[in-house]
C-alpha cells in the first residue's frame, strides 16, 4: 500500500507548465512579453513567475522542457505554425539541416538550440527574436531536441496530427549529439574551402 501511494504522490508534484526563463528584450518588444517591466526580470502571460539571470545561470533551465509533455506537444504545433517545418521538414531537413540526426553545427544543449532559434545562424537560419513569445521558444527547443530522441520518451509527442512522415519523437532512437563543422562548400567567410585543382592529364574512360 505504501509504495503506490508514494509513487502517486510523486506524480502529483509534477508541474504541468514550466516556468519561462529570463530573456533579454529586443528594441521592439512583443506585447505579450511585456507584462511586468523591470530590469533583468520578465514574465509571460501564461505564468507569473519572474525568472532572474542568476537563476538561469545556476539552473539547467531548458531541461525542464524535455520532460514536460504539454510543452513538447505545444512545441510540435509551434514547429509547424512558425514554418520551421518548411525548412527543416519533420526533422529530415531541406533548406535547413536535419534535426533528427546526431550532427549539430551549433550544439544540442537546450541553451544552444535556444540561441539558434532566437538569434538565427549565419548560413540562413532566420532569427525569431521578437516573433515568438519566450516560453514558446523554449517549447520549440524541447520539441526540436525530441526529434533526435533527447526528450523523455514518456513526455515526447506520439503520433503526429498529419500524414505519417518521420518516426514520432517518442519512438525516435536517442542520438548522441556531436558538434560537427559545416560541410566544406565555400563557407560563410566567402573563402574557398578547397583550392581549385585542375588536371590536364587524360584519364581513362571510367566505364
Amino acid at each position, binding site marked *: 500500500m505504501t509504495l503506490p501511494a508514494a509513487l502517486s504522490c510523486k506524480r502529483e508534484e509534477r508541474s504541468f507548465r514550466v516556468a519561462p526563463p529570463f530573456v533579454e528584450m529586443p528594441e521592439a518588444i512583443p506585447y505579450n512579453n511585456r507584462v511586468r517591466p523591470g530590469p533583468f526580470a520578465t514574465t509571460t502571460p501564461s505564468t507569473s513567475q519572474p525568472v532572474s539571470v542568476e537563476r538561469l545561470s545556476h539552473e539547467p533551465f531548458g531541461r525542464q522542457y524535455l520532460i514536460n509533455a504539454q510543452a513538447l506537444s505545444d512545441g510540435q504545433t509551434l514547429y*509547424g*505554425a*512558425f*514554418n520551421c*517545418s*518548411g*525548412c527543416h*521538414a*519533420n*526533422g*529530415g*531537413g*531541406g*533548406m*535547413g*539541416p*536535419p534535426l*533528427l*540526426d546526431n*550532427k549539430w553545427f551549433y550544439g544540442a544543449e537546450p541553451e544552444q538550440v535556444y540561441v539558434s532559434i532566437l538569434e*538565427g545562424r*549565419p*548560413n*540562413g*537560419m*532566420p532569427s525569431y527574436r521578437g*516573433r515568438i513569445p519566450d516560453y514558446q521558444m523554449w517549447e520549440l527547443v524541447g520539441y526540436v531536441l525530441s526529434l533526435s530522441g533527447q526528450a523523455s520518451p514518456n513526455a515526447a509527442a506520439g503520433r503526429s496530427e*498529419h*500524414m505519417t*512522415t*518521420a*518516426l514520432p519523437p517518442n519512438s525516435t532512437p536517442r542520438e548522441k549529439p556531436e558538434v560537427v563543422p559545416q*560541410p*566544406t*562548400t*565555400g*563557407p*560563410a567567410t*566567402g573563402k*574557398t*574551402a*578547397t*583550392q*581549385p*585543382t*585542375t*588536371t*590536364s592529364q*587524360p*584519364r*581513362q*574512360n*571510367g*566505364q
Partner: protein
Amino acid sequence: MYRFSKFRAWVGGALGIFLPLLNSTSLSAAEPAGDDGQWTMATKDYGNVRFSGLDQINTQNAKSLKLSWTFSTGVFRGQEAAPLVVGNTMYVVTPFPNYLYALDLNKPGTVKWKYDPKAEAAAKGEACCDWVNRGAAYAEGRIFYNTLDANTVAVDAASGKEIWKTKIGDINKGETITMAPMTVKGKVYVGISGGEFGVRGRLTCVSAADGKILWRAYSCGPDKDCLIGPRFHPFYDSDKGTDLGVKTWPPGHWKIGGGTIWGFLSYDPETNLLFYGMGNPGSWNPDLRPGDNKWSCGCFARDADTGEAVWYYQWSPHDEFDHDGINECMLLELKVDGPDKPARKVLVHPGRTGYMYVLDRATGQVLSADPFTRITASKGVDLKSGRSITNEEKRPRIGKVIRDVQPASPGAKDWQPSAYSPRTGLLYVPHQNLTCDYEAVEANYIAGTPYLGVNERMYAGPGGYRGKFMAWDPVARKEVWGIKENFPVWSGTVVTAGDVAFYGTMDRHFKCVNAKTGEVLWDFETDSGIIGQPVTFKGPDGKQYVAVLAGVGGWAGAIVAGQLDPRDPSAALGFVNAVKDLPDHTKPGDKLYVFALP
C-alpha cells in the same frame, strides 16, 4: 530537309543581332551556317533550341570520345550551370558562393581569373532547392549572371573586374536568384526565385551598360504593376479583363502571390518578344487562395524593350500541386498544320503538368497539349477554353491525404532544359516519373520563411524507374523513343548536327546517344551525379569538345548535397522519399569534365 533550311534562316536572324558584338577571336568561316562553335548564353540560342551545328562528333565515332581535361571548382553543391565558351575562354559559374571562373582554352583548365561576388551567406537558407545557379550570359565583352543573394552582376570578360552589381531582391523576404539571365540589345532580363516563400514574382529589366533598373513586370497585382495595357491581347476569355492579378485572389493575397521567374527566357528577334513562364502561386496549399491566381503558372509574351504584356496563357489556373510553369519555351517552326501547309511559328513547352504544349507564338493559342507521362493530377487540357481540366478526386483539401498524385510537385519535368534537332525533327526531353501523397495543412505567412501548407512524400511512378530521357515528335505528337533511368534525369541536354545528344544521370553516367534511335553510343562514369547543362563547342585547336559539370544536388539531389536524413520522407519538401538510395550511388561533386575525340 525543309525544316533544316527554315531553321537556318531563323537562327541566322537571331545571330545577326549579337554576332557583331562578340570578340571575333575564334570565329571561323568553315562552321556550318548558324554555328560559330561558341556557347554564349546558357540556352545556346535565343530560341532555347540547344542545337549545335558542330558535327565532328557523330554516331559513328562517338564511342571513342575521351576525357580531355577536368577542373574542380571547390564548391561541392548542385552544379546546374551551363559553362559558356566565348572565343578562347570558358566561363563557369558555381553554386553559392557563386564564383565565376575564366578558364583558358589554350592551356586547358588554367584559371585566367576568378571573380567572387561576395554573396551573403544567409541566402543559403532562403533557397528552396540547394544553392544552384543555372549559368551566365555574354554580350559586348561582359559576363552577366545572378547571385543567390538576389544580385545581378556584370563582370569584364577579359579582366574579371566587376563592372556593376545591382540588387534585384531582398533575401529577408525569401527572395533569391538561381536563373541564368538573358541579354538582348543592351538589356539584361532577370527573374526571381522564392515561390516557396510567397515572393511576389517579377521580371526585372536592367541596363547592360550601367546596371540601372529600367522596368519591372510583376506576375501578380494590378495591371499597371504587371505592365498590362492596351497591347495586351490574350487568346482566351478567362485571361481578359482588368486587374485580374488582383481579382483572381482573396483580398490582398496577390502581395504574397508568387509567380516567380526562375527558368530560362526565350526571345524572338523577328517580333521583338520575350517569352517566359511563371512559377507556383503563393502558398502551395490551394485552399488558402481560391481563384485562378493570375498570373501565376502561365506564360507571358512581352515586348523586349518596354516589357508590355502582349499575350498570356495559363498552364494551370489555381495551381494545386506546385506545378510551376517555368519550364523552357522553345521557339520553333513546325509543320503542325499539315505537310502541305507552311510551317507555323510555335512555342513548345514540355510542362511540369505532364503535357507537351504547342502554342501559336503570335497569339498564345494552344494548338495541342498531349500527355508525355502518366497523369492523375488533371484530366487533360480543353483546347476550346484552353483550361486544364481538374481531377476532382485528387483535389487537395485541408486535413486530407490525397494519394498517388502524378506528376508530383517537381512535375513530369522540372527546370532541366530540353533540346530540339531540326535535322531529326525531334525534341529531346530529360524528365522524371514521380508520383506523391499530398496533404494540405495550414500555412502562416512569415516573411523569410517558407509559405507552403503542404506535407508531401514522393515516390517512383508505375514502372519503378524515376527518370527518362525521351525523344518526342512535336508534329506527330508522340514519343519516338525513351531511355528509362533509375533516378530522375535532372540534367539538361544538347543535340548536334552529328545527330548525337548528350545527357547525364544522377547516378554518375554521362551519355551520348544516337539522336535518331536512342541507342547509347558512349557512357562515361563521373565522380558525382550530373544535373548540369551539357554544352558543345569548338576549341582553339579546331576540335569539337563536349563539356558538363558533375556535382549532384538541386532539389532532386538535396539529400546528398545537404546531407539530409532519409528517415524523414518529407525532407526536401518530400523529394527525399523518392531518392532515399541516392547516397549509395553518388557523393557531392564540384568538377567540370571536358571530352573530345582522340
